[in-house]
């Protein structure tokens, strides 16, 4: 089993001089393939900073981050963009689908960005959409979908380019309990069928049933309970 995400001694401080605020303090995390990790924490505990650092959106003040064995250290902005495109799948709060793309096009768009061929991309999209029960909805615009369906499209989109790891930022925030649990269950299912890993940041403790590990973000470090 290979390590999909590794964070070693990651520290992120904001501000300078007298008023430094350390959001992450020597944080360690290792996520292996097939693992679905939940990170819990109240708002303001640094969940967004943690996820941004893991997702190559934010350069930590110190420490090392590796995605699928590849270190983020010293990479240019363009190289990081490329890495996000191919190695990381993102899920955001309230899905964040492009309003003017049909469901299938949402997936084809990210494939196109990664220069994946048309036929191959279509087949991959079909597999994902069928697995997530969205095949009948492939020609619909996001505005015609329910909240749960949107988030399922977001799951499919995140897995489209076969990333090493999926990072989910409060994927259930805009859903009711039943829909939220369904979405989390589907993320877990995809982690297994893709043989990759996922990290979900959430503040909702009712969503943890399918997670392999639950960590709490406290004082800038992750602790298990």
């Amino acid at each position, binding site marked *: 089993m290979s390590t999909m995400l590794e964070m070693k001694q990651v520290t992120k401080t904001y501000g300078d001089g007298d008023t430094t605020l350390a959001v992450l303090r020597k944080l360690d995390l290792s996520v292996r393939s097939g693992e679905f990790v939940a990170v819990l924490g109240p708002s303001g505990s640094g*969940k*967004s900073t943690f*996820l*941004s650092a893991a*997702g190559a*959106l*934010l350069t930590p003040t110190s420490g090392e981050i590796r995605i699928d064995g590849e270190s983020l250290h010293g990479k240019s902005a*363009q190289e990081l*963009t*490329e*890495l*996000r*495109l*191919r190695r*990381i799948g*993102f899920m*955001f*709060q*309230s*899905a*964040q689908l*492009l*309003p*003017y*793309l049909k469901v299938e*096009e949402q997936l084809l*768009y*990210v494939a*196109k*960005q*990664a220069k994946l061929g048309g036929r191959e991309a279509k087949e991959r999209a079909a597999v994902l959409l069928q697995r997530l029960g969205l095949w009948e909805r492939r020609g619909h*615009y996001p505005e015609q979908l329910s909240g749960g369906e949107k988030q399922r499209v977001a799951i499919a*989109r995140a897995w489209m380019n076969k990333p090493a790891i999926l990072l989910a*930022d409060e994927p259930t*925030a*805009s859903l009711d309990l039943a829909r939220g649990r369904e979405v989390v269950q589907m993320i877990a299912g995809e982690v297994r069928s893709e043989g990759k890993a996922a990290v979900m940041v959430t503040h909702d403790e009712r969503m943890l049933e399918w997670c392999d590990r639950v960590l709490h973000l406290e004082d800038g470090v992750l602790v298990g309970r």
Partner: protein
Amino acid sequence: MFLALREMRHAKARYSLIMVIMLLVSFLVLFVTGLARGLSYANISALENMPAGYFLIQDDAGHAFRRSQLGTEEFAAAKQAAGADNAASLGVQTSTITLDAAEAKTDITFFAVDMEGLLAPKVSEGSSFGNEDHGSAVADAKLKESGVALGSTIRDQASGMAWTVTGFVNDSSYSHVPVVYINNADWQAMKQSAQAGNGSPSSEAPFNVIALKTSSEQAAGLASGLDSVEAITKKQAIASVPGYSAEQSSLQMMIAFLFVISAVVLAVFFYVITIQKTSQFGILKAMGTRTSYLAWSVLCQVLLLSVISVAVSLLLTFGMNMGLPDAMPFQLETPTMVWTGLLFIGVSLLGALISIVRVAKVDALTAIGRAGA
């Protein structure tokens, strides 16, 4: 293109609206340009159609033909330097004529030329006449609207002299009035009769300017060899025709403003749309979309909108040109149209730049921890 096209497909109304605005503005640009060209042509087509590139003129005349007086001495020097075929004298006299057949008066400009020389009119209907034929004239075809026909007799109100119209030329106006070509012999007679009144009949009446078909160096050299004579280009001569500059500059200002307006309208529209989509751009960047791709997407939309707008307004302009009455001065040559269209598209793309700067500034980091859509 993937995003650009699909976004436009999805928000048809929004993009159609902006296209209609651009269409109207570009149509107005083309229309006013055509009007400016048409007015210019209706004003000075006689000068514009002259095969001469330079004119020798008195240096204190301020480039205005009618204020200048040149004599045989200068003409002889010009002919010697440029060759007899490449220099021609020109006498200009605005006047009012009466038509014997009708009780109407019309303003015209007499052009006295060598009927076998450089400035000889190119008759399109009827026939020309020789340098020795007294009492013959070739008139601009617009005089037909005043009742002048082949064989009509026109009479100069000031001198009382009469000419028979033997032919017509097309597109020959000076200062918005039709030109009547007469030969130098009649010019002399007309001038002598005018001067007879003040009791000093000179041997030879002067003409106004000398047209040259030479290089600019040759023209300048010739002018510097002559006392108080300068060489001006055809362009300078046209700009000094009374009323020409005032007329053109006001139209040019309108055209310039229209270009600025179209750029600003498009820029503001796309800027507002871009600001609305800031969070979308953040998400796209977080997911690994390159900024260059997003910038190209915006540019594509602007390009598409402006190209379609310009194409449609060109068609409209064509159509309208067909339907316009002849009395309306409107003229648009293909090169002018192409350049105007290209400039319009260029200005539109320039207006898109502020949106592109905005897109480039969006930080992918904003995608995380954002609750709203």
